[in-house]
């Protein structure tokens, strides 16, 4: 299984994500944002956390216009796998690959702490390692994680089983307590919490392991 991690100049969780993929058995390449094409043998593209272009105005807005992002859009349109974590999720919503928008946290503060998530759906490669309704602990670290969608869209996401995780105790004001969503074809995941920060006993928790492992296993099996 081959994973590519996109590196924007302000990405700062790129190495962390690469390490998590590697631990799950993937071969990882780092892809600079000025590249115009993703390598064509990638099984999954990761868009890491950080502050892609400083994100002083709207998080992920400039990254959404980056040369590599056009290739990412084509990759997802072809049915390729992708996962965006934190700033990566913001980039995915800015490109329209995933619905909704991430606004400033309701308390207007940056929040970094481990929080409880509830697994809402398991029928996709990212989530098949969890059980429906399972509660897991994953850290968050963001200033703009307040997920917003219209009521209509929220109903649609629920109907289509596209809500990946909800917060047990909503930290940021997200609509419907949503912490992560998946695409219609179930091959793109965007989430604010950082599963790559809980894949190692020394992280104080390993609830992220199942995600990377099930992803690698299902892509290898496919």
């Amino acid at each position: 299984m081959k994973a590519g991690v996109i590196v924007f100049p302000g990405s700062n969780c790129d190495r962390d994500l690469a390490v998590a993929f590697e631990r799950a058995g993937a071969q990882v390449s780092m892809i600079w944002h000025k590249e115009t094409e993703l390598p064509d043998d990638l099984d999954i593209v990761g868009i890491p956390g950080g502050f892609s272009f400083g994100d002083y105005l709207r998080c992920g807005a400039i990254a959404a216009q980056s040369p590599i992002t056009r290739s990412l859009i084509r990759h997802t349109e072809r049915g390729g796998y992708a996962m965006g974590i934190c700033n990566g999720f913001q980039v995915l919503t800015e490109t329209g690959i995933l619905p909704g928008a991430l606004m400033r946290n309701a308390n207007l503060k940056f929040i970094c702490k481990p929080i409880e998530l509830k697994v809402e759906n398991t029928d996709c490669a990212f989530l098949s390692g969890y059980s429906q309704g399972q509660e897991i602990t994953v850290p968050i670290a963001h200033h703009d994680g307040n997920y917003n969608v219209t009521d209509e869209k929220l109903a649609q996401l629920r109907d289509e089983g596209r809500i990946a995780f909800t917060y047990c105790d909503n930290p940021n004001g997200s609509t419907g307590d949503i912490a992560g969503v998946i695409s219609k074809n179930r091959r793109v995941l965007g989430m604010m919490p950082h599963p790559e920060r809980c894949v190692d006993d020394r992280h104080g928790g390993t609830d992220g392991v199942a995600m990377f492992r099930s992803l690698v296993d299902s892509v290898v099996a496919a």
Partner: protein
Amino acid sequence: MQEPKITEDLISAHGLKPDEYDLLLEIIGREPTFTELGIFSAMWNEHCSYKSSKKWLRTLPTEGPQVICGPGENAGIVDIGDGQAVVFKMESHNHPSYIEPYQGAATGVGGILRDVFTMGARPIAAMNSLSFGEIDHPKTKQLVNGVVEGIGGYGNCFGVPNVGGEVRFHPAYNGNCLVNAFAAGLADTDKIFYSAASGVGMPVVYLGAKTGRDGVGGATMASAEFDDTIEDKRPTVQVGDPFTEKRLMEATLELMQTGAVISIQDMGAAGLTCSAVEMGDKGGLGVKLNLEDVPQREDNMTAYEMMLSESQERMLMVLKPEKEAEARAVFEKWDLDFAIVGETLAEDRFLIMHNGEVKADLPLSPLSGRAPEYDRPWVETPAVEPLSDVPEIDAIDGLKALIGSPNYAARQWVYEQYDHMVMADTVRAPGLGAGIVRVHGTDKAIAFTSDVTPRYVMANPFEGGKQAVAEAYRNLTAVGAKPLATTDNLNFGNPEKPEIMGQLVGAIKGIGEAVAALDVPIVSGNVSLYNETDGQGILPTPTIGAVGLLDSLDDMIDGVARDGHVAMVIGETTGHLGQSALLAEVFNREDGDAPQVDLAAEKKHGDFIRANRELIKACSDLSDGGLAIAAFEMAEAGGVGVSLDTADTPTLFGEDQARYLVACNFDQAEALMIEAGKLGIPIASVGRFTGDTVKMGGSEAPLDELAQIFRTGFDQAHR
């Protein structure tokens, strides 16, 4: 543009005293130009020249087999084995943070990160030691909110985990808050970069962000007292851009891999002036700069403004000429400015050209080498009156008052605004004691702490200086780490007052004695003087940042207390209440002497903890609030109650030094007692962890109730 005439007022506005100006005249043998006056003012202010403290700083122990580079460079460097080193420093950004809290604190973080990566190290940890005025002071909340947000805003975007620090409140900081920022990075010992230029005619390269008018005169501002004209100083505070800093770090580290760098220096205080002079002076060379080639953000900037600008996220480098194209490509990749702005000269000369005109032509080495140095008069701080009677207090009432006070309540409101996990190597998050970061890709780890108890230093600068080092040593020890070295950030009032100078001298003597005894040499540091407003000085605050090594994560003491564990105190308890947290918070008294620090006992007890870590489940040093606070915090972290045998006020709240609280099971407790007995180390069982209440003698309260007080006590500091 016509430069202003040199007048007495202009000289004094540049912070130069008449005798300093006379020295300037003697050095150059003529009246300086306006730009030259600015350059001297920048180099000779307190902030850059250490003119009041240098004599005493020289007495500090700075060497040891573990030290690769001591003070004098951008940061200190300590060997951690396996070809790697930890590079670290602490630096103040007090004055700017008081004037403009968000940007002041943010650029403080930026400056210290730059000091670290300039030497070839990737930053892996940050800490902040913050001192604010009293909670009810009208300015405090705004400062707390702004400073914390600024630190988070910069560090989170840059991507360095913030793993520890301190926050305190005291009326003495009402007019001068302190923001001391620490950063540490990891470097390969064979890829460390220094600032000394070498080679004549080598290109001097400007890297990073463009130069604007921000921060002109900042270092001079930081060397003056505040008065009611402080609002006018807002334009001297710089604006931070952590995204540019992140790119500058990546580009700099990438550039260093190419072998293009001869020497490199970040532009911090006094920007282009200080960095160019430092590189030339250390290399015994001159420097010529052509200012029209400096990347500029604003139009019509003068030579004076460019030389004194403190725009952030900039570096100066001496480059191997044959590597220019390669170097330029790296900076273009990261979309940063790269400009050749001058060259090194064989002669001792600092030549500043602007559009073909000579704006400054000075001998270079006297700018730092002949900076004024003062042996300021000082008086020994008089011994304080002995402590008068302290009434007995109900133990739970005393504990509640302490843990509900913003000084000792839980600080999650602060550290949850800092990304403390980015880089995915944080193995011990902030909250209690030292933070720990794993050395990426290995099983080793580095522990970090910052400590000082200003009340003690005020009462007794010598013992207080010792205590700051000792507490840092204990915090590293309590997580199982071996203390390696320290950095000192000395914050004091006006050194021209003999009693303030006496505090500085006393504290430095105490720090020196302690770092020698505990083998934690000072490898870097910073001095911030003139922390006074309207003649009112701060508490003397010599912050000590300390770094320790864990050869293996298995050596870490990171368990929690469990039901049935024995509570043991290692070290002697005499019940010293002078200058204690209890006195200050409950009785509103700051009297008595600071506790004496027995450095031999500190060393012995620290070694004992490390040698017996396998017997110890959880460990905490005893400091502010003594046994009562330490036992409560350990119970709260473990979610288990604690029952201490005594309700005696001095025993519970005394702040005797060289002590640790340890939790372990009964068999381990017995073994520890035997080991301690062999070495003559005082050890005592003081109670048990059990149930769901905190009990001290006959005084008792539910753990949940106390935890609630502890978790919300900080709220009044920011709401």
